């Protein structure tokens, strides 16, 4: 299983801070697509992804037990 954390407005869209999901064997892009469907998330293409607190590209493969975090860049200032 994998813990998936949502930050900022993604958290509001999902309704909770984290979910448990089986994403091992998926790429980051595949997980994004899956979550977008389930939770009706806003477009995820520019959302930053971290695997175990390290920046991950869209084609990176998720391993069993990895913690994934989605961090949407914001523009306010």
């Amino acid at each position, binding site marked *: 299983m994998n813990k998936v954390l949502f*930050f*900022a*407005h993604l*958290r509001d869209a999902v309704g909770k*801070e984290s979910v448990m999901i089986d994403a091992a064997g998926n790429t980051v892009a595949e997980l994004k697509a899956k979550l977008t469907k389930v939770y009706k998330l*806003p*477009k995820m*293409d*520019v959302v*930053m992804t*971290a695997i175990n*607190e*390290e*920046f*991950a*590209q869209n084609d*990176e493969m998720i391993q069993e037990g990895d913690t994934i*975090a989605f*961090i*949407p*860049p*914001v*523009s*306010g*200032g």
Partner: protein
Amino acid sequence: MNERYSRQILFPGIGKEGQEKISGKHVLIIGAGALGAGNAEVLVRSGIGKVTIIDRDYVEESNLQRQQLYTEEDVAEKLPKAVAAKKHLAMINSAVKVQAHIGDATPEVLEDLTRGVDLIMDATDNFETRMVINDVSQKLQIPWIYGACVGSFGMSFTIVPGKTPCLNCLLRTIPLQGLTCDTGGIISPAVQMVIAHQTAEALKILAEDWDTLRKTFVSFDLWRNQYTSLKMSKAINKDCLSCGSNPTYPYLEHENRTKTAVLCGRDTVQIRPSASGEISLEQLARQLSSLGYKTKGNPYLLSVELEGRERIVIFKDGRALIHGTKDLTRAKTVYQKILG
């Protein structure tokens, strides 16, 4: 100088030598809103040599809740933010040279202002300008510090050409639909937290204490008590058009810019964003109505009544018509307030 900065000189990370270096440095701050005013105040108090601030806006009542430096008098006088900032900074530290520019941070202007500076502080409110800053930073090999916040959430990342990934590595494309302070609100502590991170990095760079620079991307949520820092080395893209081996600095090119044009014979400005993609009009409508905006839409466009007599009509591809103004800068401000 010693007495004024004595507590900063006592700090071993800076010391006498660091303070001397800081006092000879020139920083460019892009934006004089919440992050701009706060960053400027910290750096001017710290005794940097010179600061240049550019901003296109004037001080409004709704700024006072989070934008330090500004007072009720500035609102009454409708002072341009860059001018108001300069006025207050002079009272805080008359020894620091402050240059104020009123206007839009276009690529030409930014490239011009950046020549000769030691550091660029990001205090803008939209990604388009940040991508321009990013390209100018790479082209002129000058570090910049990304900072942004909305609600109780914020983030910062220090970008040093040749050493760290750049913003174009991280994003690959400009986010078209981002939360802004005008759609998601903002609390002052989130601003302070971003300023703390941006200015700590700035002091390291200005004192030339390069080894202590933060290499991680920090993000936090003060209301939800979250704080993460991400390692970023995997984000480096050697084919990046901004920082890779064959850079073209795409955001300095004309076709990648937001196009604004006054529509012929009408009190309307058209804006065509540089970002490409599709907006979820339905979601935007829900969000804006919940904020109290009057919206009306169909599958192809969304019309939103704004404060005052303006109205914005947004199409699925991000193109927008701002009715009720002929002022290009004003129209762009309105657009970026709603769409980021």
